[in-house]
C-alpha cells in the first residue's frame, strides 16, 4: 500500500489505518443493527468510507481528485471541470493517533483529519489537490503542522466580513483562483455549458436533499440516517448521490407524520462519521433532532444558486456569493443570521430546545455558543451546551445532562 514513507513508520500507520477501518466498520455494523435500518442506506454507508480509500473514489476513472474541506468552496466548479472530490472531514478517533505530535488542544476534527491525511499520504493514490477555505485557525495551520506532507494545498482565503463590497469581490477573486487552479489540474477549460450543467446538477441534488430535510422535520426520517446521508455528500459522484436520495425519499414517501415530542435543534460543531456520539446520545436520551445547522449535516451545501447573467463570470459570481454571503459558519464577524435561522427553524417546527455541540478546541463555535445561548434564552428556548470531543468516556455524563435537559423541555 505504501511506497512513499519509511518502513518503520509504515508499520504503525498501517496498524492505525486498520484500526480506523475497524472503527468505521464497527459503526456501520451498529447502524445496520438499528430497527430503522433499511438497505436503501447501504449506498451511503459504503460511500462514507471512500474518504479512507481515496483511490476507490476514482476507480476506473481518469479524473483528477481533489480533497475539499469546509462548506465555502463551491464543488460545482470541481464538477464542471471533471475533478472528482472527496470531503476531507474526519470523525475517527483512531486517526487522531497519527497526529499525536500536534497541539493537545487541537480541534478533534482537524486532529483526526491530520491523521487521516497521513493515511492518504502513504496511500497508493492520494488526492492531487486539497482545497481548503481558511475558515479557522486550525485549518490555516494544518499544512504547516503536517510538515509539508501534503502534496498540494490550495487555500481559499475566506473574507470574514460578508456584507461589504471589498470582501465579496475578494472572495470572487478566490473563486477565480480556484477555477484557474482546477483548470491546470484537470487540463480542461471551464466553459459556459459545463459550468451551467454542473450548477443545475447541484441544484437538483439540493432539491432532493431539501426534501430529505423536510422528511426529517416531519419526523419521518430518523436523524441518524439523515446525518449519514449528509456526511456522504461529495464522497461520490453527485448524480449517484442524488439518485440514491431519491430512492430513500421514495421509501419514506408513504410514511405519515410522526408526532414526535421532545423535538430539539442540534447546533454547533461538525458531526462527522464515525463520530455520531452526540446524535446517538440525544436519541438515547429520548429526544429527536428535527433540525440542525451543522456544516456536515443540513448545511452541507447551500444549493439554490441562481443567476441571470449566464456567462462564466456571472455564474462564478453567483457561486461565490451563494457560498459566502449566506454561510453561517461562526468564523464570520457578524453572524446574526445564524441565531435567526435557529429561532425560525425552531419556531416553525415546534422545537423547544437547542443543544449546542462544541468540540473541544473548536474555537469559533465555542465563542459563539455564549452569544447564542443568551439570545436563545431571551426568546424562551431551552439551551444546553455540550462540550466534548471524540472520546466516549464522558458519554454517561453527557447522557445525564441530556436526560435532565429532556425534562426541562
Amino acid at each position, binding site marked *: 500500500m505504501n511506497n512513499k514513507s519509511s518502513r518503520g513508520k509504515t508499520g504503525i500507520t498501517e496498524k492505525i489505518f486498520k484500526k480506523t477501518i475497524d472503527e468505521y466498520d464497527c459503526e456501520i455494523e451498529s447502524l445496520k443493527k438499528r430497527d430503522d435500518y433499511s438497505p436503501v442506506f447501504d449506498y451511503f454507508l459504503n460511500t462514507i468510507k471512500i474518504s479512507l480509500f481515496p483511490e476507490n473514489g476514482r476507480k476506473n476513472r481518469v479524473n483528477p481528485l481533489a480533497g475539499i474541506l469546509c462548506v465555502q468552496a463551491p464543488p460545482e466548479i470541481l464538477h464542471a471541470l471533471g475533478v472528482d472530490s472527496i470531503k476531507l472531514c474526519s470523525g475517527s478517533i483512531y486517526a487522531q493517533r497519527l497526529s499525536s505530535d500536534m497541539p493537545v488542544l487541537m480541534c478533534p476534527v482537524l486532529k483526526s483529519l491530520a491523521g487521516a491525511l497521513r493515511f492518504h499520504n502513504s496511500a497508493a493514490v492520494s488526492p492531487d489537490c486539497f482545497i481548503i477555505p481558511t475558515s479557522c485557525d486550525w485549518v490555516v495551520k494544518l499544512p504547516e503542522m503536517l510538515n509539508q506532507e501534503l502534496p498540494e494545498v490550495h487555500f481559499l482565503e475566506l473574507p470574514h466580513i460578508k456584507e461589504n463590497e471589498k470582501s465579496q469581490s475578494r472572495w470572487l477573486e478566490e473563486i477565480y483562483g480556484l477555477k484557474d487552479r482546477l483548470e491546470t489540474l484537470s487540463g480542461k477549460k471551464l466553459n459556459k455549458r459545463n459550468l451551467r450543467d454542473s450548477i443545475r446538477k447541484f441544484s437538483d441534488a439540493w432539491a432532493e436533499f431539501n426534501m430529505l430535510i423536510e422528511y426529517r422535520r416531519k419526523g419521518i426520517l430518523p436523524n441518524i440516517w439523515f446525518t449519514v446521508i449528509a456526511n456522504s455528500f461529495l464522497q461520490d459522484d453527485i448524480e449517484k448521490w442524488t439518485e440514491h436520495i431519491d430512492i430513500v425519499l421514495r421509501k419514506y414517501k408513504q410514511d405519515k407524520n410522526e408526532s414526535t415530542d421532545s423535538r430539539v435543534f442540534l447546533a454547533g460543531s461538525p458531526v462527522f462519521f464515525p463520530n455520531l456520539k452526540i446524535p446517538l446520545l440525544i436519541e438515547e436520551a429520548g429526544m429527536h433532532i428535527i433540525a440542525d445547522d451543522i456544516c456536515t449535516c443540513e448545511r452541507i451545501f447551500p444549493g439554490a444558486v441562481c443567476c441571470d447573467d449566464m456567462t462564466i463570470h456571472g455564474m462564478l459570481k453567483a457561486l461565490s456569493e451563494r457560498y459566502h454571503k449566506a454561510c453561517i459558519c461562526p468564523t464570520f464577524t457578524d453572524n446574526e443570521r445564524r441565531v435567526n435561522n435557529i429561532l425560525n427553524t425552531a419556531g416553525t417546527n415546534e422545537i423547544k430546545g437547542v443543544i449546542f455541540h462544541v468540540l473541544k478546541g473548536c474555537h469559533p463555535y465555542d465563542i459563539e455558543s455564549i452569544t447564542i445561548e443568551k439570545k436563545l434564552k431571551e426568546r424562551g428556548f*431551552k439551551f444546553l451546551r455540550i*462540550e*466534548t470531543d471524540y472520546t466516549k*468516556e*464522558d458519554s*454517561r*455524563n453527557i447522557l*445525564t*445532562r441530556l*436526560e*435532565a*435537559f*429532556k*425534562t*426541562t423541555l
Partner: protein
Amino acid sequence: MGYNAGIDLGSTAVKVVIVENKEMIWRQARPTVPGQEALAMGMLEEGLKETRKKRSEIEKIAVTGYGKNLVKEAHTVIDELSANAKGAFLLSGGKARTVINIGGQDIKVMRFSPEGKLTDFKMNDKCAAGTGRFFEMAARILDVPVQDFGSLSEEAGEPANINSTCVVFAESEIVSLMAGGAETGQIIKGLHESVARRILSLTGSTSLEDDIYLDGGPANNSGLVSAIEDELFREVFVFPYCQFTVAYGAACSVLI
C-alpha cells in the same frame, strides 16, 4: 397511604431512602461497589426490616443515578438532575431556586421554577475537579478523614495557596505544601477555596438566584460551605440530610 423507596446509585455512594407521604422515614448510604444494584436492594430490605414494613407495602421504587438502568425492580427511572431538583425543592419547603450539588464525580448547578420544575442547569465535564473524589484524594494524602475537614479548616488561620483543582496536579501541590511545613488545616482551607472557585467558574456568581442550597455528600463539610459562601458573597443553606436529597427527590417524584 403507601410507602415509596428512592434509590440513588451514585458514583461514590449508593443512597436508599424510604418515604412516607413526603416524609423521609429511613435513609442509608454505602460506598459504591461492583454489583451496586444488589447492594441497593439489600439496603432496601434492611430499611424495610428496620422500619418494620413489608416489601409489598412499598408502592413504587424510583431509581436514579449513574446506575439507574441497572435496577430491574425499579418502577420509575428518573434522571439525577430532576430528582435532585425535586428533592431540594421539597426539602426547602418550596423556597429553593438554586441548588448546587457536589457529587462524587460531578458538580451540578440547578435552577428551578417556583413550581419546583427544573428549568436550567450546568454540569461539569468529565473532569472530576472539585468533586467528592477530590476530597477523598486529599484525605488520603493528608491522612485525615474527610469528616474532619470542616472542623480542621475552621480552626486554621491563613489558607494555603492551592492553584490547581485538578485531582492530579493538586496532589503534587499538597505534597509539596506538606513538605514546606504548612499545617494540615491551612491546606484543607486552601482546598476548600479552590473547590469553591471551581464551582464559581461553573456557575458565574451573578447568574444564581437566591436562595442557594447545597447538597451532596461534601456539603456536610462546613469548611467548604463557608468557602463557597465567601466566594459567592451570599448565604448558602445546607439540607440536614444533604447526601440523600437525590434519592428523596426520586422517591417523591413518584408521588406527584
